[in-house]
């Protein structure tokens, strides 16, 4: 059983621990700043960038508004092309379906193309429980799997690791799962890549079953689209006899012309490349060419819950480019694990509560894992207004029917609000603040404000408020 995020602490606690991990901070800062810079340079090359973002948002909104008919079109087209479509309401159904499909082939070791959805539903552990070993073939996903680690980024799951740590994982673990790391392996990136290539090549050539996710699903032809950088996806999608693609229902784009918009946005925004090195598309089964059995498992797992949220549904436009993570000042200080989900960063802060409901303390803490600085809004290729959704989710926690409540905070804000609404009470409160100024502790504020003064001096409260000055001097005229 590999590690999971089950039972993860709420964000403030997990994040506090992460901010003290110097190596993690250095790794995440270096990686995010590098990708940020590359993205900014390549986005600046496109004079039509803002138009592309408009188109992408509008296309996704159309898909979400007519998701039912597009999904039926996908099913019809995939079936006509010789594939089989399966529908899964939740993670358990999806895992049971995939497990049964693999078991029907009789295979015990299969290969996987990196897929955040299969991480979301915990597919690897479900397969392992059925005696099936699913090996990750994306380099970063393989690093995470070999290290019995958890993904910390949707594009670069091992972003929190530096090359010395990766070398150590390869040397220690590769031999236990197949071809060992070459003798004398250093942390030189080409050497690390070669070690991974040799280790994974064995898996590609042996595997008869592959599991993939999808970046897009083209409704008009029932085509699955996988975008990747390393070619491992192409190997899995072409060499296996049986291909099982596990895809979230929000991944649909209506036509190939629509796909064009997203392919222009994705690589530039995700990795700072003009185009992805590998874009593989496949529609059903072609006799004598590629997998001869194709299954498409369409997964809901909370997506219709998110779709029902009028403000939050825009999160389903997400194409998992990771740009919101790369730009986020909070993610930069905490890394991805603090979010307790395979979807970290700003998208994780909104998507997890939307998919699961903000009904447990960990999920309910995520909408508050933001200073609302809005940097994510500016880089999102599908124009998700993260700050709007965060505020809506906070409202649902604070005043909605979410199971998690903050009674003390609610009472305090209600009391403050009542004073602020009544001029006489507010006047008295401001005067009292000035009088109480000298009594405020100089080094550490009490109660929930204590964390504030861990890294800051306490502001001095002036004896005379503005309103007292205005009254005393008649608006500064005396």
């Amino acid at each position, binding site marked *: 059983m590999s590690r999971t995020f089950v039972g993860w602490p709420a*964000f*403030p606690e997990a*994040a506090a621990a992460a*901010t003290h991990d110097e190596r993690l901070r250095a790794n995440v800062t270096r990686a995010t700043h590098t990708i940020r810079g590359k993205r900014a340079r390549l986005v600046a090359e496109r004079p039509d960038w803002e138009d592309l973002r408009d188109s992408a948002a509008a296309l996704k909104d159309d898909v979400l508004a007519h998701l039912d008919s597009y999904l039926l079109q996908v099913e019809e087209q995939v079936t006509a092309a010789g594939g089989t479509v399966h529908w899964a309401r939740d993670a358990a159904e999806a895992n049971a379906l995939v497990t049964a499909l693999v078991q029907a082939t009789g295979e015990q070791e299969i290969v996987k193309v990196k897929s955040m959805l299969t991480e979301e539903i915990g597919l690897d552990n479900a397969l392992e429980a059925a005696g099936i070993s699913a090996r990750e073939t994306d380099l970063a996903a393989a690093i995470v799997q070999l290290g019995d680690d958890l993904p910390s980024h949707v594009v670069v799951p091992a972003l929190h690791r530096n090359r010395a740590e990766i070398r150590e994982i390869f040397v220690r673990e590769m031999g236990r799962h197949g071809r060992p790391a070459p003798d004398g392996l250093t942390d030189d990136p080409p050497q690390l890549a070669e070690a991974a290539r040799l280790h994974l090549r064995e898996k590609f050539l042996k595997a008869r079953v592959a599991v993939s996710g999808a970046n897009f699903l083209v409704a008009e032809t029932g085509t699955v689209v996988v975008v990747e950088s390393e070619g491992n996806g192409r190997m899995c999608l072409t060499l296996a006899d049986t291909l099982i693609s596990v895809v979230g229902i929000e991944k649909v784009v209506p036509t190939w012309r629509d796909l064009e918009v997203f392919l222009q946005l994705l690589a530039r925004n995700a990795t700072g490349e003009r185009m992805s090195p590998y874009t593989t598309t496949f529609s059903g089964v072609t006799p004598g060419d590629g997998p001869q059995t194709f299954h498409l498992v369409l997964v809901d797992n909370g997506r219709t819950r998110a779709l029902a949220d009028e403000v939050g549904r825009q999160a389903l436009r997400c194409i998992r480019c990771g740009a919101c993570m790369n730009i986020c*000042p*909070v993610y930069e*200080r905490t890394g991805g694990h603090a979010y307790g989900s395979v979807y970290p960063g700003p998208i994780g802060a909104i998507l997890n509560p939307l998919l699961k409901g903000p009904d447990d303390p960990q999920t309910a803490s995520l*909408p*508050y*894992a*933001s*200073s*609302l*600085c*809005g*940097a994510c*809004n500016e880089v999102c290729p599908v124009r998700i207004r993260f700050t709007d959704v965060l*505020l809506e*989710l*906070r*409202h*649902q*926690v*604070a*005043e909605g029917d979410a199971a998690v409540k903050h009674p003390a*905070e*609610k009472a305090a*804000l*209600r009391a*403050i*609000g009542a*004073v*602020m*609404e009544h*001029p006489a009470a507010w*006047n008295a409160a*401001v005067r009292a603040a*000035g009088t109480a100024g000298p009594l405020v502790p100089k080094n550490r504020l009490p109660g929930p*404000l*204590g*964390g*504030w*003064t*861990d*890294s*800051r*001096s*306490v*502001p001095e*409260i*002036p004896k*005379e*408020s*503005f*309103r007292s*000055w*205005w*009254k005393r001097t008649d*608006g*500064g005229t005396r």
Partner: protein
Amino acid sequence: MRTALFVTCLNDTLFPRSGRATVTLLRRLGVQVDFPPAQSCCGQMHWNTGYRAGTARLARHFVDVFGGYDAVVVPSASCGGMPAEAYAVAAESAGDPGLVRAVHEIVPRVHELTTYLTDVLGVEDVGAWFPHRVTYHPTCHSLRAAPLGERPYRLLRAVGGIDLVELPAQEECCGFGGTFSVKNPAVSGAMNADKARHVRATGASVLAAVDNSCLMNIGGRLAKDGAEAGRVVRTMHLVEILARTPEDGPVPGLPLAAEATR
């Protein structure tokens, strides 16, 4: 033309000098500003923490207090942005269509201070003199939510004697975020530490911004670090710089621009 100052609750209690500077500056520019004493808070704390009912009540209060004015000037981008960004949503959430209408009616008359200076009064050189090294932090609200663009820089560049230096990584959040700094103090503190480090690297004597909330955050860190390093960088709302004239002379205790050391 009746013009009101909405000083904001934070400035009223903790930064009255910013409110006084606003009055001084506006008078110098010929604006007779009124201070309706019934005013209190814009409700941003309630809004950002998810309490829309409380926000709606403070929106109602704001509309009642300022409804009769032709212009409302606010020395804060985030508080000044609340009527436009939050009040209508909060009023709808509270099921109060009358308030929604009142909000739409008042919003065009509420002006963040620098926008009021450049766009309503049409001035850039306000006759200010400030012979010190200054760096400017564009707060997230003034950068993204209600972008002020070049306005604050144009106003600062026109100040006599000023040595305005660029703040590295200026577009990055200082980590305040209102209740974020209370709910997630470790992350907030880590963001703030980097911001303060960049500020100190400029060699500026003064850090300026258009939001005293963010300045309170960064200033708290600068004071703590400065106490150890022996040199504190002061924080000042932009208006406190714009309000000073040659007659006021240099700010006592601050190094002169020419002498400002790295």
